């Protein structure tokens, strides 16, 4: 579980520190204070081994795939200034680790036997004419470094550290769920994870949870239509594509399957309230609190909704997981970012005394 995280020169943060995170951390604050950036930074940290990691965090914001450094990684740097080193310090289960990116104008990649020579020539040419992005990941005695290079086929990730496959640090599975309603990629994961849980005999558990939002759902099945596997729900005795059950049901299913099918993972949810009626919030949070506890996952979510914050207090209390919850109000004062920490108890008092907590 992430305990603390510090961002330096990342997105809108010159520096931003988040401390005492809990298994369920809810984040709120005004527009443009960096709520989504916090989730993207955590995702980048755990997904840094992927050559597409920068492209992914841009896609979360709906930015189309690009093949140049300006549009790939420069937007991740504070004020798009790549001359300052970007760092993410993260403490995971009490173990400190650091991910660092910095501009490198002198690096020229060596030939790689796994890359065709013609392509390698283009990568070397690109590294010489532009610049590369040096990365370094450290965790206790573990060290991994290398470079990102914009190549003809997109991003190329060159690793300098010689590590055997079994020596490479295994990163925690991290799922980012953005505010947009479930897309085709998410649907693919939903079907895959549902199949896995069905094999493990956990299908009824999923149905029971979904019923609080849609009591008419009595069964779930995977059905092949036009060569594609889809999830169908039995509602009122009739099988219907689950997609027709509404955004809330699909989003809830995606959140739950992310946790139940991937124990001990990190689930990042941007604008969690999207797709849910406010009356659902207490039960939604109760369900998330129970699933978090049972799966060992950590949920970090953002919201703009006051009702969602109040619902979180009620939900974690119903699930008897109050000590697993904390709330962060993020703010920007005189261009400095800061996070204010609330326990469940403090947040409850703030709400009861009409204090503004967002």
């Amino acid at each position: 579980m992430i305990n603390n995280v510090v961002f330096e020169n990342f997105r809108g943060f010159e520096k931003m520190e988040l401390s005492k995170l809990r298994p369920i951390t809810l984040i709120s604050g005004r527009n443009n204070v960096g709520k989504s950036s916090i989730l993207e930074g955590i995702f980048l940290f755990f997904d840094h081994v992927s050559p597409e990691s920068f492209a992914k965090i841009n896609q979360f914001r709906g930015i189309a795939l690009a093949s140049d450094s300006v549009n790939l990684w420069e937007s991740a740097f504070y004020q798009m200034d790549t001359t300052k080193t970007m760092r993410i310090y993260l403490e995971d289960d009490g173990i400190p680790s650091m991910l660092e990116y910095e501009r490198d104008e002198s690096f020229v990649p060596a030939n790689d036997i796994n890359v065709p020579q013609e392509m390698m020539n283009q990568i070397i040419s690109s590294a010489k004419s532009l610049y590369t992005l040096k990365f370094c990941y450290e965790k206790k005695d573990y060290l991994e470094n290398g470079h990102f290079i914009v190549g003809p086929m997109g991003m190329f990730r060159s690793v300098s550290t010689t590590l055997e496959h079994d020596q490479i640090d295994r990163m925690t599975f991290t799922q980012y769920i953005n505010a947009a309603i479930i897309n085709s990629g998410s649907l693919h994961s939903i079907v895959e994870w549902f199949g896995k849980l069905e094999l493990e005999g956990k299908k009824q558990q999923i149905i029971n949870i979904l019923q609080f939002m849609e009591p008419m759902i009595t069964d779930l099945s995977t059905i092949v239509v036009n060569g594609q596997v889809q999830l169908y729900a039995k509602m009122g005795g009739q099988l219907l594509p689950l997609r027709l059950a509404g955004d809330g049901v699909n989003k809830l299913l995606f959140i739950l399957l992310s946790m139940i099918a991937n124990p001990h993972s990190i689930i990042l949810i941007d604008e969690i309230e999207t797709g849910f009626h406010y009356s659902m919030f207490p039960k939604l949070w109760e369900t998330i609190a129970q699933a978090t506890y049972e799966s060992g996952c950590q949920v970090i979510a953002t919201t703009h909704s006051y009702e969602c914050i109040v619902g979180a207090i009620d939900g974690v209390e119903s699930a008897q997981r109050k000590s697993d919850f904390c709330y962060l109000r993020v703010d920007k004062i005189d261009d400095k970012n800061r996070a204010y920490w609330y326990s469940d108890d403090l947040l409850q008092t703030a709400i009861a005394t009409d204090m503004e907590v967002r």
Partner: protein
Amino acid sequence: MPRKTNDRLMKEHLIICEGRDGQEFLIRYLNSQALSYDPRFSDDIQVNDFGGNSELYKYLEILKNTSGYERLRSLMIIRDAENDAETAVRETQSALRKADLAVPLEPHLWTGDVLKIGFVLFPTCGDIVEDGTLEDLCLAILAEPQAGEILKEIDSFLMMLGEAHQRDFPRIFKNRLHTYFSVHNDHVSFKIGEAAAAGAFDWRSERLDLLNQFMEKMF
């Protein structure tokens, strides 16, 4: 849980008091003609309710997390002395200390640099404290010239009720004030804030001088 009005910190000077009655009372006082000589009273001071006295420490912790706290220049706490003024002083100091804020050595004394902090207790609002509540102060500043005579009659009535029907009045200050409101056509069923708005209190009363002096030093 129903949605309530959330208070943002909008002003540089904040008074926090125990309960809605105190909040309404102070807002009416700050906006009264008695203080109109200095527009800062009505324009630059925000009044919030911190709930019950036992919640003061948590409220202060939350206040430190609230948007606008970093712009605060003065913070004044007002609460009832209740039936043990010395304990009320210690409780207020303890809450400030626990919240890691500057602690005034006594009531009616400002302390701190970047953020000035002070506190007073109803009913005296001065450096010398007495047991009592906001209601006691309200009873002492009633605007009606005959208020003193009427209160004597109310006291006799309550005593008679107590003796005839074995009634105990553990919060006699409330019984006295609200009986007074109930026998005044313009104030029937009013709460303190409503009565204040309806002109029940004399905002120029000498009993408010110490509160006035203390508030002037907020700026």
